[in-house]
């Protein structure tokens, strides 16, 4: 009996150690839809703040703003976020109300601001779950891209209690946009406060025949508009030019409304501009709608129309402004589809991992820039166009993808498409040349110091780039596991993640195919915000 007593006692002691080394491991896989946005300088093509020196301030507005959050599941106060390394990683709340579908797209607007850059915004229409990649080109006012002319003049006139004392005229250096401010007009900011003191004026003109300018077009060329009759429509702009005007006083108040008169805006329109209503270049006598932009909603409002006039041999469009905004001369084409044709990316040899393909879409009618497109391609998963113009022939010129080993075959460069909303699939041929590259796997586990036995295996977007290249490419991490294909043995790469308005990165010298990062301690504030401990 003594023997059995000892056995029991021994067993009890051992029971205390049964759970030793065993953890509660959580697959932090709550996110179904991610929205990754990269901010580029429109002139240099570089990520804004790639060195970590500046951050773009982002505010989410629009009908589904409450469905947008940080990828850790935290929704910031006032829906405001800031970029790191030129990247913002957001996600949709995985609730039924924000489950994107063709019948119920999730729509929100991203208002972006950065000192020294023209404020802009971009509307996002998400129609399916998965990874969504976007690009916003921002115009640096002291170094604009080709096709964008900026004139910033200080002290052009003055105001007393909102009333402009003397008339002023400000033009861009190219002379393509001019505003005329009459005397005695009263200017107030959006809060109804009158401007006073010295008046500064910024006039920025976007040339509609220049691709760089169109790519930096605030709000893009696939907008939601409110027509003159009050109806709301989605569709596509055929642009005849864009003018951004900012009027500020000495206190920094921005003019928003006018009383006792109008400000005259005049723009010179390129004769190469395509008029879709006449299917020919624009001509004197053609009528073009005028739109104002609400950057909070990312939507354009039809203010009226103007008739092209021939003045000194140049086509001129002018319009009296009753309030201050960004203005646009555009023909609107309202036929589109939320989810269009399927793309089939066919490689000449099997590709096992996921990768990103980027392209620029042009309209075939006038060969003008339409939008940047991104496709996140995974084996055996269909890829669809979303929010595409219907019945309009377009072409996609493919750029570099996320992987240097994958290129679009000459037979598909560019890819010509008659109708993005047709049911027939669009085939894009790829050439896969793995060469001296390999595929590495990364295994990540993190924890909070206050709960070391709870291990978190993250699932969200990550980024990587060759060291010092700054060309961050996306990679998906699921359940703490990420696979990066096409990296070169011996080369050094940076792998980073964006969450909680912060950027975290690590350097990886590729010497083996498997990298394990366990025991990463999460910042206390993240543990507190996300897990509550």
């Amino acid at each position, binding site marked *: 009996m003594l023997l059995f007593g000892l056995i029991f006692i021994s067993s009890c002691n051992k029971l205390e150690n049964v*759970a*030793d080394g065993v953890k509660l491991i959580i697959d932090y896989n709550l996110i179904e839809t991610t929205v990754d946005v990269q901010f580029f300088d429109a002139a240099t093509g570089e990520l804004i703040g790639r060195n970590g020196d500046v951050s773009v301030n982002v505010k989410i507005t629009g009908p589904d703003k409450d469905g947008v959050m940080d990828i850790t*599941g935290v929704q910031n106060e006032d829906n405001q976020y800031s970029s790191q390394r030129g990247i913002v990683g957001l996600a949709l*709340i995985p609730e039924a109300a924000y489950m994107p579908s063709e019948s119920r797209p999730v729509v929100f607007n991203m208002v972006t601001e950065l000192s020294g850059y023209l404020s802009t915004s971009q509307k996002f229409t998400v129609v399916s779950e998965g990874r969504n990649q976007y690009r916003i080109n921002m115009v640096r006012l002291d170094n604009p891209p080709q096709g964008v002319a900026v004139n910033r003049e200080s002290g052009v006139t003055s105001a007393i209690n909102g009333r402009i004392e003397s008339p002023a005229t400000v033009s861009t250096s190219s002379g393509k946009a001019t505003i005329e401010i009459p005397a005695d007009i009263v200017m107030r900011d959006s809060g109804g406060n009158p401007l006073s003191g010295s008046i500064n004026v910024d006039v920025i003109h976007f040339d509609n025949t220049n691709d760089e300018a169109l790519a930096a077009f605030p709000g893009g060329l696939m907008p939601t508009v409110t027509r003159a009759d009050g109806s709301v429509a989605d569709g596509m702009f055929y642009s005849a030019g864009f003018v951004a005007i900012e009027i500020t006083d000495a206190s920094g108040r921005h003019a928003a409304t006018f009383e006792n008169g109008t400000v005259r805006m005049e723009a010179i329109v390129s004769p190469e501009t395509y008029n879709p209503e006449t299917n020919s270049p624009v001509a004197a006598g053609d009528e073009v709608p005028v739109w104002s932009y609400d950057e909070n909603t990312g939507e354009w409002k039809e203010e009226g129309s103007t008739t092209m006039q021939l003045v000194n041999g140049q086509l001129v469009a002018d319009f009296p402004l009753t309030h201050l905004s960004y203005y646009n001369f555009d023909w609107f084409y309202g036929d589109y589809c939320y989810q269009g044709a399927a793309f089939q990316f066919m490689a000449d040899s099997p590709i096992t991992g996921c990768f990103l393909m980027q392209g620029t879409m042009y309209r075939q009618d006038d060969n003008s820039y339409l939008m940047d497109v991104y496709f996140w391609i995974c084996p055996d998963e269909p890829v669809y166009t979303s929010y595409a113009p219907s019945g309009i022939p377009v072409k996609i010129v493919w750029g570099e993808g996320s992987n240097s080993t994958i290129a679009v075959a000459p037979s598909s460069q560019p890819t010509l498409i008659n109708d993005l909303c047709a049911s027939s699939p669009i085939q894009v041929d790829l050439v896969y040349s793995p060469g001296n590259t390999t595929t590495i796997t990364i295994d990540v586990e993190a924890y909070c110091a206050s709960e070391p036995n709870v291990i978190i295996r993250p699932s969200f977007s990550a980024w990587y780039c060759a060291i010092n290249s700054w060309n961050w490419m996306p990679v998906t991490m699921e*359940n703490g596991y990420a696979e990066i294909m096409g990296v070169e043995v011996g080369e050094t790469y940076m792998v980073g993640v964006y969450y909680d308005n912060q950027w975290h990165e690590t350097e990886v010298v590729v010497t083996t195919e498997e990298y394990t990062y366990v025991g990463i301690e999460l910042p206390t504030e993240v543990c507190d915000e996300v897990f509550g401990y």
Partner: protein
Amino acid sequence: MSAQELYEDVEYTSEESIDESRLGIGVGIKMSTFGPGIEAIAAISPKFHLRLGGTFMHYTYHHDDKNIEVNGSADAHLSSVSLFANYHIARIFFVSGGILYNMNEIGLDGFFTKSMTIGSLEVEPERIGALDFKIKPGSSLTPYAGIGIGRSLSKNGVVSFAIEAGAAFHGNPKVELKATGMLEPTGSEEQRQQLEDNLAGFNIYPMLNFQLSFRLL
């Protein structure tokens, strides 16, 4: 038969009084750490008994309290088929040995009853998932050894009583670990192996058996 008579049946059993020619068979009921069961006993000789038995018990405890975050259940499935031999080494003492077909299985499961708040998200219990943990003997065929007092088959009477303690050597326990939802990685092979390693010392299952037997022939 009273307890006193049972005691006397055990008490009068002695080396001197054993009738070497008295063979017999009987049946018994028992309550053991393998659960309640029955047994057929054959007395090959007064000192040597063969026992073929079986046990079965299934007990489930559900902890169901919506006021706390985690509920679960414990499930004990105890069953065995045994073939033992008893040899009386002294007046009322015997040693026992044999083999068990061990079908014991202990299970625990747990699941969340309330949503969890993660950041701005309310995560439903179904999404969080559940944990299911089972322990089985390392070997189904389990050698057994024990010692006892009393008789598994009465020498001269009808009823006998025996108490027995021993150990079944079932080998290092096998662990099944399953997890669903967000907890799925908790059920990884590494975690399961870690639990098996931690339980590796528990290779003996203690046996305590109380048996009441009836001589038929």
